[in-house]
């Protein structure tokens, strides 16, 4: 366990913890949505400092973890086309598809590049007119404006060798899918701070109201997380269910309107398959009709068989908050970061990898 003095604001950490212990009278289950938050909670040993009757479960907020097997297969199909340079954020390369991962595909000769930004892929398209550049556009609402912007820029530059494989996911429909599950045990959510920097707070209000569930928009540092937990528990103890904002230094009620406008100009909302969870209606973005020439699915006429998910991986139950990583029979045995069976063991923001990496230190 970390010592309190190692935190950015040790006194505040201690004060929030004291207050949480003081006000908690009943058992509550809270879910943090964002994988960055999961990582921070586990790595900083916060789970061990909370009162015993507060259970934190770890949500689906990691794009690496929720991108479906079929989409990975589509990515591999594209990467294996002649004259294609397939570009991706680094985290996606090790995610297992139905037969292999992008990393294995790269090892057998496909031109796959790891980029920091989709805008670099546009640059690559400009510099390589004889190649087709495809960017793997994954991510939550935070990443959508950047991916959309890459399409707008490519269109302005009149590039006909740039396209994206979009597999965007959206937070509010996922929350609803979790809350409406008959086995749901979650009493409150910590929503993801940076997602709300873009989208603002309003779209969470109908969810909080419909399911009588407090939602606190929260940052990812220990102090933020503890304050977010405190705000959520306060509401629960008082029987309230509001949308509150802990992350006021980055989140405004209306979000970043320019970013939202760019998203809406390029993407249309569609149904999306979440790995382990299944199809959630209206939970993703696909390239819209106007920009269809930049949609890699259309451009390359992708038509491959939808693969089944690996039945040995219980990631769906973990991301719905029904199970903890250690309850998976494969955890640490057949499934390790070096040989991931499922996606949450791949990314450091995946719950399984976080538990595996820090369990020895933090006894979670």
């Amino acid at each position, binding site marked *: 366990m970390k010592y309190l003095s190692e935190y950015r604001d040790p006194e505040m950490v201690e004060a929030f913890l004291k207050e949480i212990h003081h006000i908690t009278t009943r058992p509550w289950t809270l879910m943090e949505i964002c994988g960055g938050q999961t990582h921070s909670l586990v790595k900083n040993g916060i789970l061990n400092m909370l009162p015993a009757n507060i259970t934190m479960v770890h949500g689906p907020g990691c794009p690496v973890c929720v991108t479906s097997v079929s989409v990975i297969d589509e990515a591999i199909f594209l990467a294996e086309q002649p004259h294609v340079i397939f570009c991706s954020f680094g985290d996606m390369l090790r995610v297992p598809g139905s037969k292999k991962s992008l990393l294995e595909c790269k090892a057998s000769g496909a031109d796959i590049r790891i980029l920091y930004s989709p805008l670099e892929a546009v640059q690559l398209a400009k510099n390589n007119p004889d190649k087709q550049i495809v960017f793997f556009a994954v991510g939550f609402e935070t990443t959508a404006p950047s991916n959309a912007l890459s399409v707008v820029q490519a269109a302005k530059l009149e590039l006909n060798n740039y396209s994206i494989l979009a597999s965007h996911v959206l937070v509010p429909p996922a929350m609803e899918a979790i809350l409406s599950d008959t086995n749901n045990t979650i009493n409150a959510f910590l929503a993801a701070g940076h997602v709300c*920097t873009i989208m603002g707070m309003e779209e969470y209000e109908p969810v909080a109201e419909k399911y009588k569930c407090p939602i606190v928009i929260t940052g990812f540092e220990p102090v933020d997380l503890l304050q977010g937990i405190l705000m959520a528990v306060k509401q629960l103890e008082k029987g309230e269910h509001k949308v509150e904002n802990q992350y006021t230094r*980055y989140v405004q009620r209306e979000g970043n309107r320019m970013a939202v406008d760019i998203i809406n100009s390029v993407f249309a909302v569609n149904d999306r398959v979440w790995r382990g969870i299944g199809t959630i209606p209206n939970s993703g973005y696909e390239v819209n009709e106007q920009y269809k020439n930049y949609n890699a699915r259309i451009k390359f006429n992708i038509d491959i068989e939808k693969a089944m998910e690996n039945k040995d991986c219980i990631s769906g139950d973990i991301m719905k908050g029904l199970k903890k990583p250690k309850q998976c029979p494969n955890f640490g045995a057949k499934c390790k970061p070096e040989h991931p069976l499922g996606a949450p063991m791949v990314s450091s923001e995946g719950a399984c990898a976080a538990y595996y990496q820090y369990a020895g230190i933090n006894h979670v």
Partner: protein
Amino acid sequence: MCLAIPGKIMSISAQLDETFRTGLVTFGGIQKEVNLCMVPEAQVGNYVLVHVGVAIGVVDEEEAMKVFSYLKEMGEVHELEATVS
């Protein structure tokens, strides 16, 4: 990949139109060309929160410094090192 990292705008490199406003941003020594179209109010010397090459918000200096050192300590800034090759 989902993180946003704060950095300081060193110069505005290009302003072709509303989607092509870019600037050079430094993240504790690592410099990156960043798109600034979603933060029209940001000027040279300001700190911006950058996510995969695009600034999504403006932050004050003190906050930016604190967040950056926290991220560095957590080993979260390596993604800045992936570049076009």
